[in-house]
């Protein structure tokens, strides 16, 4: 079943991309969940849709933009969205949790208007929303490779600081860790990984790959390191199996990947019921 992925170039690209995403998304997801920011991934992925829609719209009216990969615009929007969330948190001092639903719904609403204007309600959009095995091109693959490299370097550089911040923010700030800057880098990283995963998993499902493996891993793990290990294993297994299944049954790859994660989660919940 897996051989077919090595016979065709585009399938090989999606397999390699899948392997990278299966590592990155759950890895960042652990930090997100521990810092109680798991919902931010949803908000950022929805605002990525706005960026992609905007890129489609520009491409329709200005030929100059038509050649531009929509991923870039998606990334730019999702980083801006991250900044907006921080702003909104300051506006609603007593209701900080409002920032995420506001950005999420505004993002998708504006995105829909752009798509309408660009007459973009086509099959292509469906691939963006729910992911697809076959849409990965060589340039996508290269770009996602670069993103992965950057993210891995950043993680290696700042692992200790984030670890510290996640568990004892006050102590970390007192010991002189630049919280704001690190938080910003982290959010930008999340935005990058969302943009990278989007092709395979789909915008509506990227956040699932960041939270579900972690939620399963937390049921088994006995330490923080183990959480990473289990989360990445679950992530990789679900991505590879999901791609194979999606190809064979001709359904959206995002759907199969997420449902495999849900199955893993259900099994984990069932088997570890007595432990917690």
């Amino acid at each position, binding site marked *: 079943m897996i051989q077919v992925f090595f016979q065709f170039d585009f399938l090989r690209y999606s397999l390699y991309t899948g392997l990278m995403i299966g590592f990155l998304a759950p890895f960042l997801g652990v930090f997100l969940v521990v810092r109680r920011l798991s919902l931010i991934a949803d908000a950022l992925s929805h605002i990525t849709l706005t960026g992609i829609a905007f890129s489609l719209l520009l491409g329709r009216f200005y030929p100059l933009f038509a050649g531009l990969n929509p991923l870039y615009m998606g990334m730019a929007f999702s980083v801006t969205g991250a900044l907006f969330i921080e702003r909104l948190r300051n506006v609603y001092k007593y209701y900080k949790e409002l920032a995420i639903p506001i950005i999420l719904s505004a993002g998708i609403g504006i995105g829909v208007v752009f798509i309408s204007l660009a007459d973009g309600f086509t099959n292509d959009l469906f691939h963006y929303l729910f992911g697809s095995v076959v849409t990965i091109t060589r340039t996508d693959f290269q770009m996602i490779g670069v993103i992965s490299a950057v993210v891995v370097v950043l993680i290696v550089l700042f692992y200790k600081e984030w670890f510290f911040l996640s568990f004892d923010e006050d102590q970390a700030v007192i010991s002189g860790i630049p919280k704001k800057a690190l938080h910003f880098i982290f959010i930008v990283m999340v935005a990058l990984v969302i943009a990278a995963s989007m092709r395979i998993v*789909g915008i509506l499902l990227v956040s699932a790959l960041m939270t579900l493996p972690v939620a399963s891993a937390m049921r088994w793990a006995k330490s923080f390191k183990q959480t990473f290990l289990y989360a990445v294993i679950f992530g990789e297994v679900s991505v590879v199996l999901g791609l194979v299944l999606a190809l064979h049954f001709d359904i959206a790859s995002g759907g199969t990947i997420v449902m495999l994660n849900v199955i893993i*989660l259900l099994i984990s919940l069932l088997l570890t019921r007595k432990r917690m």
Partner: protein
Amino acid sequence: MEILQQLTFIERGIVAGLIIGLICPLLGAFLLVRRITIITEALSHITLTGITAGVFISQTMTWLAFINPLYTGLIFSLVGSILIEKLRHAYKSFQELAVPIILSSGIGLSAILIGLSSGSTVEWYSYLFGSLVTVSLSDLYFTMATGFIAFIIIFAFYKEWLSISFDQEFAKTSGIKVNRLNFFFSLLIALVISMSMKVVGILLVGAMVTLPVAASIQIAKSFRQVVILGIIFGEVAMIAGILFSYYFNIATGGMVVVTGVVILLLTSLIKRLGLVSSTVA
């Protein structure tokens, strides 16, 4: 009923829009003070699963073809709200995980069901993003009936919900049956989502619940004002959105949400200029 049958499709849409603009912010105000506005996102995504399941069932099993996807959507979102409560218990120290888990599994399952059901993918866009043209007479009846039930539930328990929203412990000691009321509340959210879906679209129902009250809380001085201003903003967003989408031929849900965003920006501007000093947020 006679009058309803004579409505043109745009009038049907506006009537449905008026009902949605009334009920959504009303519910939103309670969700806001209970700090669970995000729950509508999770439940609306699981409603999508219900809809896709309904369509899939009626396609594959002919003797079940009479099923209206709206009803399966309603059932799924009810089940989803119960599951969220269950998951909150499973992850005691990470309760906020329940919402993203339900949200993403809902969408994941829908993606598979959409892939399995026959017909072009493009048809799904009216469910996802809302469409004025597809509001049929029976959809309008559905919206009116569910809206009516939701309205009655809200007003029958208005005082109890106010009490629970602001101080759950106090409400419990003063003899309010919190668990049962919370179940009714989940039922209410499910009803509101299913009734708004046809016009606003599944992915944008959450916006209608959140944006008007997010705007009103900036300038309101009391809970009552949050509710009243929220409803006004909701109605304005609905009507303006529907009209704009009709004249410019843009997806209805998107335009409604954009109007909501504009209102939100305006209220923030009013607040920043110091024209009104809110005591709530």
